[in-house]
Structures are given as C-alpha cells and as structure tokens.
C-alpha cells in the first residue's frame, strides 16, 4: 500500500487539471517600497513617517504558522535570487503557471494592508497603490494573471470610486473584500459597495486573512494555529449567514460572492440548518422570499483549498453533489504552506464533467473569461 501511494503517477484522467484556472494565487512584494511609486507624495510621506494602523491587537505577531521557516510559505518557493515566496514572477511561472499550463491565475494580494487599515484615507490610498502594483508587476507582464481590486470597505465613497475606476478593465477579475471586518458583511452600511461591485460586473471574492479587530472565533482568541485554521470556517459561515439573512441577495439580485480559502464541506450542513430555521422563523425575516439554500446556490461560489480530506475519500463526491459541482472552483493558494496540488488534492477520481467544471468551466463562466 505504501509503495502504491508513493509511486502513483498521474494517470491519463489525472491530466485533466492541465489548463486549469487557479482561483487563489498570492503575489508578494519584492521589498517594502514596491508600492511607493503608486502613492501620492502626501500618502508616501505618511507611509514613511507614520505608517499603518491595523486592527490586529497582538501587534507584530504572525498569523501564519512557524512550522515552516519563514512565514508559512511552501519551503521550496523561496526564490534563489533572494526575496520572498510569491515575489518572483519567473519562479511563479515555473512552479505554477507553466508547470500546469494554468489558463488564468486569480491574484489575491494579501499585502499592503489596505483592507484592514484604520486610517481609512490611507487605506484607500494603499488600495489604489496595490491595484496599480498588481497591473505593473503581475497582470501586464503575464496576462494570465488577473487582478483583484482592493478596497477599504470602511471608506464607502473611495471604495465605490475605486471599483468604478476599474470597471471594464479586463485585467481585473473581481473585487477583494477581507472577510473579517468591523461588522458582518451583510449589514446595510456595506450595501452601496456590494451594489457597485454587482453593477460593474465584478464578483466579490472574500479571501481569508486580515484582521477584523475581533477575536477570530466567537468564543475568543485561539491558543494554537491548529485552532486558528478551522476558525476560517466560522468566519465564512458568519459571512454566508449574514449575506443571506440580511436580504442582500434580494436587494442585489446579480451579486456574486466567491469564498476563497475557507474550504467548502461545511456549506451543505449550514444550508440545511438555515433552511430548517427559515421554515420556523420566516416572520422575523419576511424579506427572504426563497429558502436560504436557494440564495446560496444562486449567489455563492466556493474555491477548493484548503480542501477537506474525508476519512472515506468517496464522501467527497457527496459533498460536491450537495453544493453543486457548478459552484466549486479549483484553487491552489500558491505559495502558501497549505496550498493544494491540482494533481493530488482530490483523493478520489471525479466524473469527467465535474472535473471540467471545477478546474475550468465554472471560473470561465463566472469571470466571463475566454
């Protein structure tokens, strides 16, 4: 058994990942000054002399595990030329884009701190700078890479202006909002921004990470990284529940939400629970015209990483069926330590039509790609 596991080579069917669309790729800066050319003199001076103010209480602690030397990166992703994993385009091409003939890679920049910045004017300036940086350093040099528009959702006016400025620019695929915010995303204060995303044809990607300023679990701060990692699921569940219950999808019928790096096996059980209570509590939320699970299926897409690995591998097929194979999109999370390899992430063969959807067609349709 051991040798069988080890020596297995991708069979013909397993080659179907080639040409996939990677829904979670992390670019990183080469140095702390990468964003400077894209900041106005006013904000550059602010960055250099005052700096950011995040919502993270435990200043200078790393959210990432130190299991791997560095900051939770794949150990073989440190560029030989120096610099940080994800900062070197040729290496990203070698380890990801060219290796798997990736059709498109959707960028999820977790740098710049725009989304969680408490000084919202500075946050808005950093958002613009990170957007320009994505184009200059990634999307223009390699058109397979598609940017994610950064905004600070606590500055409504600036966020909408940034979204409208990028409308029609095919180098951007979506708007990226940190899922850990000051309030659950379905609250009315965020509706104008969500409306702007939908009106301008941008899905909203909610990528785990960032700091909302609140403890990462409903019961307080975790002691271990092992405890922190599954808290991503709680965050995603809070978002889905908030968006559904607040009636966001009634208000914005063409809003499309993509959950990134939260896994997905938990989603069917959450929908069952929401549906059950909707039958009992409809009088409290009369604005919900349809069952929660219908809103979820019509408006929410999930990406695979960090993929669940059920004890009985065949159970994965049931999970995908419950969510709907038309709503699941493959993602690697390159170059993070918990990234998934498209050849081996699924521990059971998928039906051919599911593979096509999950590796390519769902993302192609959602993002309107060639």
């Amino acid at each position, binding site marked *: 058994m*051991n040798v069988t*596991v*080890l020596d297995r080579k991708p069979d013909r069917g397993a080659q179907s990942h080639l040409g996939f669309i990677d829904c979670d790729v992390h670019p990183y800066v080469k140095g702390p000054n990468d964003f400077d050319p894209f900041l106005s003199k006013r904000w550059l001076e602010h960055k250099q002399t005052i700096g950011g103010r995040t919502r993270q209480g435990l200043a200078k602690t790393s959210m990432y595990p130190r299991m791997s030397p560095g900051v939770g990166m*794949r*150990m073989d992703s440190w560029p030989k030329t120096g610099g940080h994993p994800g900062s070197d385009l040729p290496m990203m091409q070698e380890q990801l884009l060219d290796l798997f003939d990736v059709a498109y890679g959707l960028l999820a920049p977790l740098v710049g701190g725009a989304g969680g910045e408490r000084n919202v004017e500075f946050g808005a300036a950093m958002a613009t700078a990170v957007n320009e940086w994505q184009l200059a350093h990634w999307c223009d040099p390699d058109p397979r890479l598609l940017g994610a528009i950064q905004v600070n959702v606590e500055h409504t006016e600036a966020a909408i202006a940034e979204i409208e400025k990028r409308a029609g620019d095919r180098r951007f695929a979506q708007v990226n909002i940190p899922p850990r915010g000051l309030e659950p995303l379905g609250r009315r204060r965020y509706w104008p921004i969500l409306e702007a995303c939908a009106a301008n044809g941008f899905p909203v990607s909610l990528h785990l990470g960032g700091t909302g300023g609140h403890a990462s679990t409903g019961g307080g701060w975790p002691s271990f990284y092992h405890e922190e990692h599954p808290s991503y699921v709680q965050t995603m569940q809070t978002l889905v529940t908030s968006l559904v219950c607040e009636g966001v999808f009634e208000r914005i019928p063409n809003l499309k939400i993509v959950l990134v790096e939260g896994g997905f096996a938990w989603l069917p059980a959450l929908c069952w629970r929401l549906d059950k209570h909707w039958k009992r509590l409809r009088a409290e939320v009369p604005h919900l015209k349809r069952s929660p699970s219908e809103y979820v299926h019509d408006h929410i897409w999930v990406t695979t990483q960090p993929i669940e690995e059920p004890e009985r591998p065949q159970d994965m097929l049931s999970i995908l069926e419950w969510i709907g194979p038309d709503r699941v999109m493959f993602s690697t999370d390159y170059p993070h*330590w*918990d990234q998934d390899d498209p*050849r081996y992430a699924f521990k059971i063969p998928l039906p051919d039509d599911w593979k096509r959807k999950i590796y390519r067609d769902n993302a192609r349709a959602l993002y309107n790609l060639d």
Partner: protein
Amino acid sequence: MNRHVVAKVEDIQPGTRKIVTVKGREIGIFRVGDDFYGLINRCPHQGAPLCRGEIVSRLVAPSPGDYRLTRPGEMIRCPWHCWEFDIRTGQSLCDPNSVQARAFDVAVEPGRALVEGPFVAESVPVTVEETYVVVTL
C-alpha cells in the same frame, strides 16, 4: 538490484542530508549521527519534495502541558503541509500504519570493498582510501 555509490561519507555531515538521483529517482540521504538512511524525495500526501523539509525532533506529550522532545534530528517535516516522517523508516507520524515514505537501504562501505565491485559509481569516483555511502536499488 544494484549498489550505487552516491557520496563520500564526509560529504554528508551529521544532521544533514544530501539529495541524490539513482535510476531516475530522487532520494534523500540522511545522516543521523554516524548512521545513514534513504527516503524517496516525494511526499505520499501531495507529491512535495519531502526530503527538502526541516529535520526536526519528535515532540511527544503524554498529557497536555507535559512535553518531551525525543529523538532529536530523526524526523523529516514535509516542506508543504508539514506531515512528519521517521527518517529511519519512512513511517509517518500522522498515520503510521498506512502512510509511509518509501525507504531505501543505505550502507557505508570502504572504498577497498567497493573497488572489487560490482557497483555503480554514479558521479562519485571511488578510491580505496575513502569510505562511501551506498544505496541499494
């Protein structure tokens, strides 16, 4: 099965590893003290280059808060998802009964014995004065 000379003993210092290619397979040769072990450079989980990971100890805790650092330098931690394997056997820490990295026989041989053959020298020239690390595959 052939014997392949992959390194001089002094090329691999205690606590370090060298990754070699034998018959097209990448194998990590580990030196723990004066003992040598070989593991395939491929994690059974998702295919990462296993032998390039951190060499660590085996940390055990009979109960919460009671930690014992055991077997220093005898575990290899995968550079991707941090699954740990026993360098001596390839046995995994997470699921020792069913997940294992393939281990190879590694021996130390004096050059005097090797020159009598048969062996495959790969890219290591053999002289009678030296001692060598030999993989059987």
